[in-house]
């Protein structure tokens, strides 16, 4: 949860969202990522650093390569927050139905 703010900020950039979507389809190196985005490797590296700092992307060492992948934990933290929001909304309104039914009864008794 500590990185939630950083995660939302990181995803505020369309290129970073595109990089993340590409990585969601599978691991990729900086070179592989630079091609479809027609960006320099250094620009891609900067975006990757923001995503890594936000806990959304992780890397591993493979010889001289450092393939990047989506960091599930980071995505899950955001996902959890949003799922919580929807579930909370549904449960809240089910409860509100009950509260409203109760208000109606009270009104009836007064009359």
């Amino acid at each position, binding site marked *: *949860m*500590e990185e*939630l*703010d950083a*995660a*939302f900020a990181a*995803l*505020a*950039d*369309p290129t970073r*969202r*595109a990089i*993340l*979507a590409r990585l*969601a*389809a599978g691991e990729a190196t900086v070179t592989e990522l630079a091609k479809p985005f027609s960006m320099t490797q250094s620009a891609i590296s900067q975006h990757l650093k923001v995503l890594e700092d936000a806990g959304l992307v992780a890397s591993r060492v493979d010889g001289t390569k450092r393939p990047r992948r*989506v960091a*599930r934990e980071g*995505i*899950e933290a*955001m*996902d959890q*927050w*949003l*799922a*919580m*929001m*929807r*579930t*909370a*909304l*549904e*449960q*809240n*309104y089910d*409860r*509100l*139905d*009950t*509260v*409203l*039914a109760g*208000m*109606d009864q009270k009104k009836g008794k007064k009359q």
Partner: protein
Amino acid sequence: MSKLSLRTEGDTHLVVTRRFAAPPEAVYRAHTERDLIQKWLLGPEGWTMPVCVSEARPGGKIRYEWTNGKGGAFHLTGEYVELEPYRRIVHVERMFLPDQTPDNHVETRFVADGGGTLMTIRMTLPDAQTRAAMLATGMERGMEASYQRLEGII
């Protein structure tokens, strides 16, 4: 009938609709009166709202604090902007989880619908990117759905 609907509108809006079997006055009061709010605005099972501030006047403060009694806690702060009794509420809110989420501008309308109320909540996020980020990570559970959505927004 009473099912929650959640959809996007334009670049920065999220719209929630829900029908209730009570008149607009009751639904409006349940959204503005402290004692009523504390009965239902609780989130997942097991959570309570020990602190509820709802100063229902323009400029009035909103503060909701939730706890699950097991050390879990988060809160929301906000301000009322406009209030038209039984018809419309405009307010701003942000959550602390504990990190602060971007300001959410919320307009809630209550319209008489048969014997009940059709409530429409229109949320405005600061920019398209914030909303995209919210949707990108998925409104529903499931990692795969999240990834597909992520690809869909590019």
